[in-house]
């Protein structure tokens, strides 16, 4: 095995969080042990898993290769369908392993502070462990069925954790919404799996790719399968028009939002498309769909993020927008640049969510109108949040700059229209992030409560993420990371660090981000320009953005209530009443009528029965005698 890592240790990467989940959920539950040690158990498992992942990833970074770890036969349907439970380790997997385990680890440590004193912490850490396991399984699975199972499992964990405070109706509602809407996308994914299985005859990812490249699968099938897979990715990664669940998912605990709804699970759609990329490469239609949906989503979610009052809502729309960016990168440039952005985004977005959580922890609100002036009261939170915001805005030399640069670059050389959309998004990203920064940390404090800096257990994970938000992009200074992932070329680090400024694009993107930040500063810090006045001047656009393009209303009132409930379901109801119930009723009625006719035979007189019996036997006897 690679790096001389025993296979058992590779199995332990997803195995340890699963063991932690089992221990927390089964043992602790039945033994009724409730102590804060439970959190440490989950953290220890994730930490060990992270160390192993880092080991694996380091090996892949120096010597990129694809390793299959043969598993055992899990399901054998008479030779027709043989499913082997095996793992795949490749550079794509390696980068995801590090992101998932690291963010999960930091989020769990942060949760010790954030969730302190909360009820059923046991359940919380158990679900996070289960999520970590499912996410790692999804990343490492070598066959589509296992991948789909883990895909559903992360969806389940998302549902369970959004609804962690299930006694709050809004949280329960949001959990259900997330489950339903992602299910629409999962339908496409499942259909694609079945389609690929019927035409390629296997569920193994590498074998499917080989079959598709060899031309054993017709190009129509490849296109439809790729679109189906992308539909699954759209649901999970909250791409327009299946994005409505993600902002609502902010009802869950903030560390959960940081882990599941910012860094890992929502990025699994991007990972999935990346994992199945050979199929997409064979279908230009699918690739351009991915790019277009990505660009539209990025721009669309960016406009909504401009006007939200809730920090987490801004961050949620920002996440949707950045996921759109990654999809754009996948559609135009390839796996490497999208995964690079996924990598950097995971760190600074998790950091921003933790910052929002820290603010909420001390002020008790997410509403920015009730904040302000927190810079002095919460200096660490403020500093790390600003670093995250700078990184997300794409300011040199922070991580976000490098990964955004790659995506913008591939858009510029392929699709000028999509490039313009991406650039507009970059401007809005810088603006809304610094709108949050100035509204929250700048100005004067609005409320009478006395906010205080969060405890060390929350600040330290944020500091770690802040360091990564600055430095994660440097991993690709020599072009090594993207090369390992399959695209790009290596160059000296000085070229990577400074040489990009020979290209005008770097100046353009910096200018765009800078002007966004400047505008936010002018409007919300200096108040030279009244935000209210601007909103009034562009009130039609403002209203549209503020109501999120009325997409929720469209889904609930028109598609949900009218089309589905009154139309389709009514039709089903009638079909049920007339055809299905009708058939059963008619059969019963027929029996009733026929039995009325013959029931006179059963009169209860034993003597009459005997007589009939006698005549019957006599008749049979006569028949035998006369016919021989």
């Amino acid at each position: 095995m690679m790096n001389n890592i025993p296979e058992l240790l590779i199995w332990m990467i997803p195995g340890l969080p699963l063991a932690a989940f089992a221990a927390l959920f089964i043992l602790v539950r039945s033994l009724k042990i409730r102590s804060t040690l439970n959190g440490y158990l989950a953290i220890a498992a994730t930490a060990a898993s992270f160390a192993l992942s880092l080991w694996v990833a380091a090996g892949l970074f120096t010597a990129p290769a694809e390793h299959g770890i043969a598993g055992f036969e899990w399901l054998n349907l008479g030779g027709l369908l043989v499913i082997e439970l095996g793992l795949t380790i490749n550079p794509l997997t390696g980068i995801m392993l590090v992101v998932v385990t690291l963010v999960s680890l930091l989020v769990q440590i942060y949760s010790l502070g954030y969730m302190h004193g909360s009820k059923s912490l046991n359940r919380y850490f158990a679900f996070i462990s289960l999520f970590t396991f499912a996410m790692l399984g999804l990343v490492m699975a070598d066959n589509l069925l296992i991948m789909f199972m883990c895909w559903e499992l992360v969806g389940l964990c998302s549902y369970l954790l959004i609804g962690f405070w299930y006694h709050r109706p809004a949280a329960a509602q949001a959990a259900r919404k997330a489950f339903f809407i992602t299910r629409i996308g999962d339908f496409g994914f499942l259909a694609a799996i079945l389609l690929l299985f019927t035409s390629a005859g296997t569920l193994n990812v590498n074998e499917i790719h080989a079959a598709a490249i060899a031309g054993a699968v017709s190009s129509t099938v490849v296109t439809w399968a790729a679109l189906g897979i992308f539909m699954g990715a759209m649901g999970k990664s909250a791409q327009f028009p299946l994005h409505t669940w993600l902002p609502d998912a902010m009802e869950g605990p903030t560390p959960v939002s940081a882990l599941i709804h910012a860094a890992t699970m929502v990025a699994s759609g991007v990972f999935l498309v990346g994992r199945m990329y050979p199929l997409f490469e064979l279908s230009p239609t699918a690739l351009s769909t991915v790019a277009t949906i990505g660009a539209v989503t990025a721009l669309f979610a960016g406009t909504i993020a401009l006007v939200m009052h809730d920090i987490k809502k801004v961050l949620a729309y920002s996440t949707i927008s950045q996921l759109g960016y990654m999809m754009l990168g996948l559609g135009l440039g390839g796996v490497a640049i999208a995964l690079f952005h996924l990598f950097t985004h995971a760190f600074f977005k998790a950091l921003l969510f933790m910052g929002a959580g820290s603010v909420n922890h001390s002020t008790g609100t997410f509403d920015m109108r009730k904040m302000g002036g927190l810079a002095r009261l919460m200096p660490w939170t403020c500093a790390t949040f600003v670093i995250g915001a700078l990184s997300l805005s794409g300011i040199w030399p922070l991580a976000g700059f490098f990964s955004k640069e790659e995506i913008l670059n591939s858009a510029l050389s392929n699709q000028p229209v999509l490039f313009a959309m991406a650039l507009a998004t970059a401007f809005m990203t810088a603006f809304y992030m610094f709108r949050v920064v100035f509204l929250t940390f700048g100005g004067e404090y609005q409320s009478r409560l006395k906010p205080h800096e969060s405890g060390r257990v929350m600040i330290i994970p944020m500091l770690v993420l802040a360091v990564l938000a600055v430095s994660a992009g440097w991993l690709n200074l020599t072009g090594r990371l993207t090369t390992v992932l399959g695209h790009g070329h290596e160059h000296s680090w000085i070229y990577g660090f400074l040489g990009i400024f020979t290209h005008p694009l770097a100046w353009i993107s910096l200018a765009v981000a800078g002007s966004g930040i400047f505008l936010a500063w002018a409007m919300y810090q200096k108040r030279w320009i009244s935000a209210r006045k601007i909103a009034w001047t562009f009130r039609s656009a403002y209203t549209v953005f503020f109501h999120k393009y009325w997409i929720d209303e469209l889904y609930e009132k028109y598609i949900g209530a009218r089309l589905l409930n009154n139309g389709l379901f009514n039709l089903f109801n009638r079909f049920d009443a007339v055809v299905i119930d009708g058939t059963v009723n008619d059969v019963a009625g027929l029996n009733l009528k026929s039995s009325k006719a013959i029931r006179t035979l059963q009169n209860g007189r034993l003597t009459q029965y005997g007589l009939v019996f006698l005549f019957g036997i006599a008749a049979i006897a006569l028949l035998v005698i006369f016919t021989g």
Partner: protein
Amino acid sequence: MVPGLEQYLILSAIIFSIGLFGAITKRSAVVILICIEIMLAGVNIAMVAFSRFITPVELTGQSFSVFVIVVAAAEVAVGLAIILALYRQRHTIDTDKIDLLKW
């Protein structure tokens, strides 16, 4: 005159018919049971006669009648038990009145 096979069979048929008539016309369960016994006796006579006149060496017919007698005894035991249980429940053994299962 020494009776031949024919005479025995006629006797057997007469006894069987008497039993059959009783089993069909009577209402009392006990009487019906007795009539069925009479029918079985008729059949036994026929079997023994066949055995005596047609296969005198083998004793198949005789052994069959012994079987019939044994089974009839068991049948009477079960039948009387059922009749007793019925009587305890319904205070009658008139078969025309035992018609709970009639629609």
